[in-house]
């Protein structure tokens, strides 16, 4: 990384300069020249949807299949690049007809249906900002994110709207339009199908500038509210490049990313990267089902498969026998992300599929894959691989506002030299939290890792209290906040405990208000409350009662101590402990 990209730090304010500089540097051997060569640019700027759709149609590839959608009940629908472009255009026209314009914000919350993809791409075409929400979220995480993100438009299903949103939608002051998938809509909402049918299939993609915001992905924080990581249109350079280099996405490849588009993987590598690289992507509406998945990989002749450790471990539970009847010979490359893939799963997959799942590492903030076991490179089972070309990674320690790079075999925080195109440009309305991610010319990831003598990186753990469950990053604060809304709960401390399938599961420690007694019935009532508020993916799977929780002098609950005790680990420095757990 060049010195001047360090000078751009910290702060989002410096971002436009950083983007401009990256372009200026091209003449002098820009390391991202290869990435730029994979996209066309649009009217002097960059628009993700132009790269994903328009240019392929213009180049005569409109008849190639962009999406092969497999419905829950066995439906099957192919959408060519030309058809998907027309759908995205119709969606863009629907937005325009309601007076929405570039810079406005569109939230989407739905299952994996073709309309969701058309909405994402239509939003980008029209220059609006797209934010996906996980459809299994409960009402509380949805509302918090729509408030932080100043949502102007919500695209969702009638069922989700009625169950989770209708009760408070009118309190979101920025919200102008609710689009409901299908032919009918509740009062005050607009049915999307007739609106799309009435809209023109032609739309000229908005000439967005490289640094215009395109996507906001929410990620959890240890304290405080979720953070909205802002990504710009120029990120498409890195989506394209990393998909090519780390996943082997090339025109014509049949590709299946099992991640839900409600999360960053399902967007960067479940919508943008595959389409920009002109693959045929499979979309399965159904949830994980072993027989269905194996049949799908076989019957659709999946060549590149990008999945997650939780799913892979669920396959492992059923053993090699369950896979025996299937023909996986079309598979060329398998990759995994979301949490570290254990060596046993790597070896098992090599045996069953003829080649191993290749682990890689990235996070919401990086916008794209940073470290990977790439196609053609030797896999180290248990390692996340090596930094992608152009990425400068390090293992570092912080001391007195300075960063010290650590050597081979030392455990420290995984960090990167900023400047790659898909890096977040801000946490929405949270400059101070954004600035905290950058110290002394490094972006700090919050993950602890180690680099071996051959340059492979190994995940060690989180540097903070965040919980990784089934690949989802969960902020304990958000869970604790929901728990203490229950009438009986006084205080709550939430940690992740190891789970062989999910990696970690959420466990809560609570104290009760005076006058309430711990009981199984109360445990269920509180857990039910949390599930209703947060959804099953975020709510605790287990709640235990305590008389007091371990706290510091300033009254902060020491989650680290709860976790150390849960795991039977050394308690470490407890000099700040004021009140202990009882």
């Amino acid at each position, binding site marked *: 990384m060049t010195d001047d990209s360090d000078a751009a730090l910290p702060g989002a304010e410096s971002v436009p300069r950083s983007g401009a500089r990256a372009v200026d540097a091209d003449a002098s051997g820009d390391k991202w020249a290869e990435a730029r060569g994979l996209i066309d640019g649009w009217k002097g700027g960059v628009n993700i949807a132009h790269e994903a759709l328009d240019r392929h149609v213009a180049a005569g590839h409109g008849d190639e299949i962009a999406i092969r959608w497999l419905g829950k009940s066995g439906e099957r629908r192919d959408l060519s690049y030309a058809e998907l472009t027309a759908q995205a255009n119709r969606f863009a026209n629907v937005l325009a007809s309601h007076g929405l314009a570039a810079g406005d914000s569109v939230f989407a919350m739905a299952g994996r249906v073709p309309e969701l993809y058309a909405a994402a791409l239509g939003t980008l075409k029209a220059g609006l900002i797209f934010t996906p929400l996980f459809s299994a979220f409960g009402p509380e995480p949805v509302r918090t994110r729509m408030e932080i993100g100043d949502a102007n438009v919500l695209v969702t299903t009638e069922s989700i709207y009625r169950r989770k949103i209708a009760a408070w939608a009118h309190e979101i002051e920025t919200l102008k339009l609710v689009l409901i998938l299908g032919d009918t809509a509740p009062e005050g909402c607009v049915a999307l199908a007739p609106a799309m049918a009435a809209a023109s299939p032609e739309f000229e993609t908005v000439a967005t500038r490289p640094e215009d915001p395109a996507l906001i992905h929410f990620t959890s924080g240890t304290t405080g509210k979720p953070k909205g990581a802002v990504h710009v249109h120029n990120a498409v350079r890195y989506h394209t490049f990393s998909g090519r280099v780390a996943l082997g996405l090339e025109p014509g490849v049949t590709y299946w990313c099992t991640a839900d588009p409600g999360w960053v993987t399902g967007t960067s590598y479940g919508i943008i990267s595959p389409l920009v690289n002109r693959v045929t992507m499979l979309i399965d509406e159904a*949830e994980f089902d072993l027989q269905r998945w194996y049949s799908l990989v076989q019957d659709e002749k999946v060549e590149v498969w990008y999945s997650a450790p*939780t799913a892979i471990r*669920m396959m492992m539970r059923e053993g090699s026998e369950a896979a025996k009847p299937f023909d996986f010979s079309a598979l060329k490359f398998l990759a995994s992300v979301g949490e570290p893939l254990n060596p046993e799963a790597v070896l098992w997959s090599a045996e069953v599929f003829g080649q191993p799942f290749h682990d890689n590492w990235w996070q919401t903030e990086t916008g794209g894959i940073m470290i990977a076991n790439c196609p053609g490179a030797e896999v180290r089972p248990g390692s996340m691989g090596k930094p992608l070309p152009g990425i400068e990674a390090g293992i570092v320690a912080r001391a007195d506002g300075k960063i010290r790079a650590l050597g081979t075999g030392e455990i420290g925080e995984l960090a990167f030299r900023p400047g790659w195109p898909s890096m977040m440009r801000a946490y929405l309305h949270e400059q101070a939290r954004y600035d905290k991610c950058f110290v002394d010319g490094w972006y700090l990831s919050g993950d602890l890792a180690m680099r071996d003598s051959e340059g492979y990186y190994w995940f060690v753990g989180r540097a903070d209290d965040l919980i990784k469950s*089934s690949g989802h990053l969960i902020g304990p604060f958000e869970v604790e906040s929901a728990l203490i809304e229950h009438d009986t709960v006084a205080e709550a401390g939430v940690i992740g405990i190891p789970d062989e399938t999910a990696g970690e*599961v959420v466990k809560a420690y609570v104290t009760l208000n005076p006058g309430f007694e711990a009981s199984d019935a109360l445990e*269920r009532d509180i857990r*039910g409350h949390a*599930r209703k508020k947060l959804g099953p993916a975020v709510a605790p799977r287990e709640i235990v009662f305590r008389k007091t929780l371990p706290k510091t002098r300033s009254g902060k609950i020491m989650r680290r101590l709860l976790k150390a005790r849960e795991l039977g680990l050394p308690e470490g420095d407890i000099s700040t402990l004021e009140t202990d757990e009882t």
Partner: protein
Amino acid sequence: MTAADYRAIFLAELCRIAPDIDPETVGDGDHIQDDLGLDSMDVLNLVVALHDRLGVDIPEKDYPQIATPTLASDYLSRNV
């Protein structure tokens, strides 16, 4: 045990794992994921709970056969 007994056990374990569900409102044909909102970890925990309670091994390929109370009570009647 009768099919009704298995249905009751299934429902009890279901609501222990997902206490946001009111057992009174669960229909015989309600799908545990699509209608009742369980996620895949919940389903796994349900399978483990049924194993602990009834000693029944439910392989992954049979998960669709416990997807509703009716299917599940039928399946458990045949396999326990």
